[in-house]
C-alpha cells in the first residue's frame, strides 16, 4: 500500500483528506496527517465566532472519530521538522522518521508581524489560531480587571482579517482603533470610494480608523502603552492585535531545496506539484502563477487537484484564472467584491452608485461593448452579490442599459437581474465545495431530496463559507415549484400546517385545547415551537389567559414574568400611556425596595423590576395589584405599551390629547396575544416625540384628526411605519386599528412581526388598505366583532394567579422542599445589584 503524508491539518489539509476519502477505495493508500496545533482542523474563516461563544468544538471541520473511522492517522501537536527527499522520509521535532510515497504540504501561513520596534512587548497579539485568541481573551480579561473606564485597543491592519479582529476587540468591551498603512481600508478588494463608504459606516459603529499610518514604534516599558507613528503622532492603547497579512509557512521547502518564490511560498505547477514531482503543495503555502491565494475556495480547489493527480486522474488541473471574489459581513456591514473590482479604462467602463445617507456603494465594471459584466464592488448591501457573481462567472447577458443592474429598471415590474433558474446548469454556485446549479437541481429532480436540509446534506453546498446560501435556497424553492411540489413553511415536525392554517382549523373545528389539536391535526409529543404558537392561537381566538393551558406556554408566559440571565424574573406592571400618579410611583419604589429588586425605566415608558425569585412573584404581584396595578404583559407575545408624548393637555405645540388617546388604546388592546410582540405610539403633533413611527402602529395628530401609520418597529431591523390613513377621528382610528390588528393576528406566521408580515404579504400595503379600509374581502365587520369580543373578555392574569391557590402553587422552586434556589449569586452595581457574570 502506498503511503501519503499530509503536513498540516488546517482547512485545506482537511479538505484534502475529505476529497481523498470520497474519491478512493479503501486500502489503496495509507494517509498520515501531521498537525502542529493541539486540535484537529477547524474553520478559521469563522474564527471571530469563537469570541462570541468560546466554543472551539463548534468550529471543528470533522471530529477525531471521523479521522479514525476513515483509517486516517492524525498526529496532532507535532510539527514536521525536515524533509529528506532522497530517502523519501520526513522527520518530526521529536526525531521520529516516517517514509512516504507522496508528500502533500498544506502548512498554510502564519500571521505576518512587521519588524516594528517594541513589537515583542506584552499585550501585542496576532490573530490567527484559536490559541492566539485564547491568549488575547485572557489578557483582555486581566486588563479589564485592572483598569476601569474606557480601554483602547488597536488592530494593526485594515484588511479583511483586521476588520474582523476589530469587531472582536469591540466585543471584548474595548474602544477599537484600526491602524492601516495604506490610504484606504481593504485595499485589495475595494476602490477608494467604496472604502470610504465602508470607513464612514464602521466609524458610525464606534470603530476608530487611522489611515496612512506607518507605525514606528510600540511604546511602553515591558507592556504596551501606545503606538507611535511620527514624532508627534501617537495613540495610547493598552493592547494591540496585529493582522498585517500572512506569510507562507515554507520553511520545510528549505530543508530539501524545493523552489520557493522571492517573497516566500513554494512554487507549484498546475498539478500542484513542487519542483520535486512526488511533493505537492496546496493552500496558502503554494505559490501558483506567482500568487499566494489567501482564500479558502482556491485552497479547496488545489486540494481537489492534488488528490486527483495522486490517484492518477491527470487531466484534473488548476485553471489559469482563479476566482478571488469574496462576500462577507464585516461588523454587520455587507462587503463584496468580485471579478475585476478596479477597472482599467482600456478594458471597460464603470457604473457607480453611491448613497451616503444609507452608506451604500455599488460599482459594476462592464466591457466596452456593454455585453459582459467584468467585476464590481458592493458595500452596505450585498444582497445582489450571488447573482452578479454568477453573471460574471458564466458570462451571462446583461440588460442593454447596464445601469439597471444596480439601480433597477424604472417603470417595469420585476427585477432586471432575472431568475436564478436562468443560470446554466454548469454554473458553480458553491465555490467552496464546487457544487454547480445542476448538482443542486439534480439532488431534487433525480435523487429525491424534498427540502433545503436534504439538499445540503446530500451535496454539502453552503457548508463552507455559507455565502451561497441565499442562492441555494432560491434554487431549491424554484426547482421544487417547477416540479409542482409545494414549498410550504410548516410549523414544525409535529404539524404539517402553517400558522394561518392551524388558526383556521382550530377556529372552525372549535378545538379547545392543545392535546386535541395535536391528536386531530398533528403527531408526536409536540415541541417548544408548536406549543407556544398554538397557545397564542388559542389566546387570540378565545382570549384565554396563559393560566388556562399552562403546559404549552413558553417559560415566560408560564410564570407570567420574563426569565432573566440567571433564572430570576423581572416584573413589569402596566402603566398605560406612561402616565402614573406620584402615589403609584412611590408604591412601586417601596415594593422594589422591600424585595431588593434592581429597578430601571424601560424604553416603553414603564418600570422594570429585576431579580425576583420564582416564589416571590405572587407576593410582589399581590402588593402591586393592591396598589392598583395590573399585569404589563411584558413577558408575552402581546401588546406591550402604547407610548405617548404629553400632547395638547400641557404641550404648547400639541394638537390633540395624545396621552388620553394612548391610554384608551393601551387599555383596549392590553393582554391581546399575537404572533409577535407589538407596540403602539401616539404623538400630539408632527414633532413626533412619542416615536409613533417606530411602532407597529402609530398615530400622529394633524389638523383635522389623526394620521395612522402601520408596521414599524425598532430593534435589530428598524423600520419606519408607513402612512396608512389620514385625518381620522378617534372612532375611525380605533375601527381601522381593530381590523388591522385582527387581520395581522389571523394571517401572520409565528414570531413574524408586523413589518416582515407586510413585506411578505401578496399585494403589500395596498392590499391591507383594501381589506381594512375598503373591506374588499367583506370581513371588516367580523374582524371588528372578534376584536370587541377579545376586549370584553380581558382579565388580568396576575390577578387570576394570586387569587387561585392552585395557580399559586406553580411559583415554587422545589416540589419537595420550601428551600429556594441556592445557585443564585448577585454582585453590587451602582447602588443596586446584578447577577454575577457568567
Amino acid at each position, binding site marked *: 500500500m502506498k503511503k501519503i503524508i499530509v503536513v498540516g491539518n488546517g482547512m485545506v489539509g482537511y479538505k484534502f483528506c475529505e476529497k481523498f476519502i470520497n474519491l478512493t477505495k479503501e486500502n489503496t493508500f495509507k494517509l498520515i496527517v501531521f498537525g502542529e496545533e493541539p486540535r484537529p482542523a477547524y474553520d478559521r474563516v469563522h474564527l471571530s465566532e469563537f469570541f462570541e461563544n468560546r*466554543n472551539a*468544538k*463548534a468550529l471543528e471541520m470533522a471530529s477525531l472519530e471521523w479521522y479514525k473511522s476513515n483509517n486516517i492517522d492524525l498526529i496532532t501537536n507535532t510539527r514536521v521538522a525536515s524533509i529528506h527527499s532522497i530517502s523519501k522520509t520526513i522527520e518530526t521535532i521529536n526525531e521520529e522518521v516516517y517514509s512516504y510515497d507522496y508528500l502533500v504540504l498544506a502548512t498554510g501561513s502564519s500571521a505576518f508581524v512587521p519588524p516594528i520596534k517594541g513589537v515583542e512587548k506584552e499585550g501585542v497579539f496576532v490573530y490567527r489560531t484559536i490559541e492566539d485568541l485564547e491568549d488575547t481573551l485572557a489578557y483582555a480579561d486581566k486588563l479589564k480587571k485592572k483598569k476601569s473606564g474606557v480601554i483602547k485597543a488597536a488592530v494593526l491592519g485594515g484588511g479583511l482579517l483586521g476588520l474582523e479582529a476589530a469587531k472582536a476587540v469591540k466585543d471584548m468591551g474595548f474602544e477599537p482603533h484600526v491602524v492601516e498603512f495604506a490610504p484606504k481600508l481593504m485595499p485589495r478588494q475595494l476602490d477608494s470610494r467604496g472604502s470610504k463608504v465602508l470607513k464612514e459606516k464602521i466609524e458610525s459603529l464606534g470603530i476608530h480608523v487611522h489611515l496612512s499610518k506607518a507605525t514606528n514604534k510600540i511604546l511602553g516599558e515591558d507592556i504596551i502603552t501606545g503606538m507611535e507613528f511620527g514624532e508627534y503622532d501617537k495613540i495610547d492603547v493598552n493592547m494591540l492585535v496585529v493582522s498585517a497579512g500572512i506569510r507562507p509557512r515554507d520553511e520545510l521547502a528549505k530543508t530539501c531545496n524545493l523552489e520557493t518564490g522571492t517573497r516566500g511560498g513554494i512554487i507549484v505547477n498546475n498539478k500542484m506539484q513542487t519542483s520535486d514531482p512526488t511533493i505537492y503543495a496546496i493552500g496558502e503555502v503554494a505559490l501558483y502563477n506567482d500568487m499566494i491565494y489567501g482564500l479558502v475556495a482556491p485552497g479547496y480547489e488545489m486540494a481537489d487537484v492534488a488528490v486527483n493527480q495522486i490517484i492518477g486522474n491527470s487531466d484534473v488541473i488548476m485553471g489559469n484564472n482563479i476566482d478571488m471574489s469574496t462576500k462577507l459581513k464585516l461588523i454587520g456591514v455587507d462587503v463584496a467584491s468580485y471579478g475585476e473590482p478596479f477597472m482599467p479604462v482600456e478594458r471597460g467602463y464603470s457604473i457607480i452608485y453611491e448613497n451616503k445617507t444609507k452608506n451604500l456603494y455599488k460599482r459594476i465594471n462592464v466591457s466596452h461593448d456593454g455585453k459582459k459584466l467584468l467585476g464590481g464592488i458592493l458595500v452596505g448591501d450585498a444582497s445582489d452579490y450571488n447573482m452578479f457573481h454568477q453573471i460574471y462567472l458564466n458570462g451571462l447577458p446583461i440588460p442593454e442599459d447596464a445601469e439597471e443592474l444596480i439601480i433597477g429598471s424604472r417603470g417595469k415590474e420585476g427585477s432586471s437581474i432575472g431568475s436564478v433558474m436562468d443560470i446554466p446548469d454548469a454554473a458553480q454556485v458553491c465555490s467552496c465545495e464546487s457544487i454547480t446549479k445542476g448538482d443542486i437541481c439534480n439532488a431534487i429532480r433525480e435523487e429525491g431530496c424534498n427540502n433545503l436540509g436534504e439538499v445540503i446534506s446530500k451535496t454539502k453546498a453552503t457548508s463552507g463559507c455559507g455565502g451561497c446560501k441565499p442562492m441555494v435556497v432560491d434554487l431549491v424553492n424554484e426547482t421544487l415549484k417547477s416540479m409542482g411540489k409545494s414549498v410550504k413553511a410548516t410549523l414544525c*415536525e*409535529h404539524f404539517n400546517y402553517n400558522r394561518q392554517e392551524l388558526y383556521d382549523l382550530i377556529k372552525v373545528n372549535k378545538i379547545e385545547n392543545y*392535546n386535541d389539536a*395535536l391528536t386531530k391535526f398533528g403527531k*408526536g*409529543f*409536540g*415541541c*417548544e415551537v*408548536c*406549543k*407556544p404558537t398554538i397557545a397564542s392561537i388559542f389566546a387570540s381566538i378565545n382570549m384565554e389567559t396563559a393560566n388556562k393551558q*399552562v*403546559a*404549552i406556554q*413558553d*417559560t*415566560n408566559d*408560564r*410564570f407570567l414574568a420574563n*426569565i432573566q*440571565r*440567571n*433564572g430570576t424574573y423581572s416584573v413589569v406592571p402596566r402603566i398605560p400611556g406612561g402616565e402614573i400618579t406620584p402615589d403609584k410611583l412611590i408604591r412601586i419604589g417601596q415594593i422594589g425596595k422591600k424585595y431588593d429588586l434592581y429597578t430601571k425605566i424601560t424604553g416603553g415608558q414603564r418600570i422594570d423590576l429585576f431579580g425576583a425569585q420564582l416564589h416571590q412573584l405572587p407576593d410582589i404581584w399581590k402588593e402591586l395589584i393592591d396598589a392598583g396595578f395590573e399585569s404589563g404583559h411584558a413577558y408575552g407575545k402581546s401588546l406591550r405599551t402604547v407610548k405617548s408624548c404629553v400632547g395638547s393637555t400641557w404641550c404648547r405645540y400639541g394638537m390633540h390629547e395624545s396621552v388620553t388617546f394612548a391610554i384608551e388604546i393601551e387599555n383596549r388592546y392590553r393582554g391581546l396575544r399575537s404572533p409577535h410582540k407589538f407596540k403602539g405610539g401616539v404623538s400630539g403633533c408632527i414633532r413626533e416625540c412619542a416615536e409613533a413611527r417606530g411602532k407597529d402602529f402609530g398615530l400622529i395628530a394633524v389638523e383635522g384628526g389623526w394620521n395612522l401609520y402601520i408596521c414599524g418597529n425598532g430593534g435589530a431591523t428598524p423600520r419606519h411605519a408607513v402612512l396608512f390613513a389620514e385625518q381620522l377621528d378617534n372612532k375611525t382610528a380605533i375601527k381601522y386599528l381593530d381590523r388591522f390588528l385582527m387581520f395581522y393576528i389571523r394571517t401572520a406566521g409565528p414570531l413574524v412581526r408586523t413589518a416582515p408580515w407586510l413585506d411578505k404579504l401578496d399585494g403589500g400595503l395596498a392590499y391591507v388598505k383594501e381589506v381594512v379600509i375598503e373591506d374588499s374581502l367583506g370581513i371588516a365587520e367580523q374582524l371588528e366583532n372578534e376584536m370587541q369580543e377579545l376586549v370584553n373578555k380581558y382579565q388580568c392574569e396576575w390577578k387570576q394567579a394570586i387569587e387561585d391557590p392552585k395557580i399559586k402553587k*406553580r411559583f415554587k*422552586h*422545589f*416540589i*419537595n*422542599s420550601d*428551600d429556594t*434556589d441556592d*445557585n443564585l449569586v448577585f454582585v453590587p452595581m451602582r447602588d443596586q445589584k446584578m447577577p454575577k457574570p*457568567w
Partner: protein
Amino acid sequence: MQNLIEQYQTVSKNRIKTWFKVGKTEDFPVNSGACIKYKTKQIAVFNFTINNKWYACQNLCPHKMEMVLSLGLIGDKEGIPKVACPLHKKNFSLEDGSNMGGDDLKIAIYPVKIENENVYIGFED
C-alpha cells in the same frame, strides 16, 4: 462552578443505591416539568402523559450554569422525548441526555419510578 456540574452524573438502572421519594404524582404538573431537591442536587422531573412516562434530569443548564431546565418546554424530536432549555432553547434528549443540537454539552439523566402514586428518583448515593 466546575464542582457544580460534576455532581451531576447519569445514573444507570443497575447502579441505584437509593430510591428517593420526591412526592405524589398529583404534585407534579402534567406535560411539563418541576424541580426537586436531593441533598445538594437539583433535579428536573417531567411527566409526559401522552406516552405515560416520567423522566428526570439535572436542573442545571450545562451551557450557562443556571438552574432552569425544569422550566423548559418538553416534547419530542423524531420520537425522542426532549426538554428545550428556556434560556437559549438548546434541546436535550431525556433518554440519554445528549444535546440534540449537536454540540458537546450533555446533561445527566436519572431513573424515575412510580409506585402507589408516589414518585421516586434513583440515585447512586
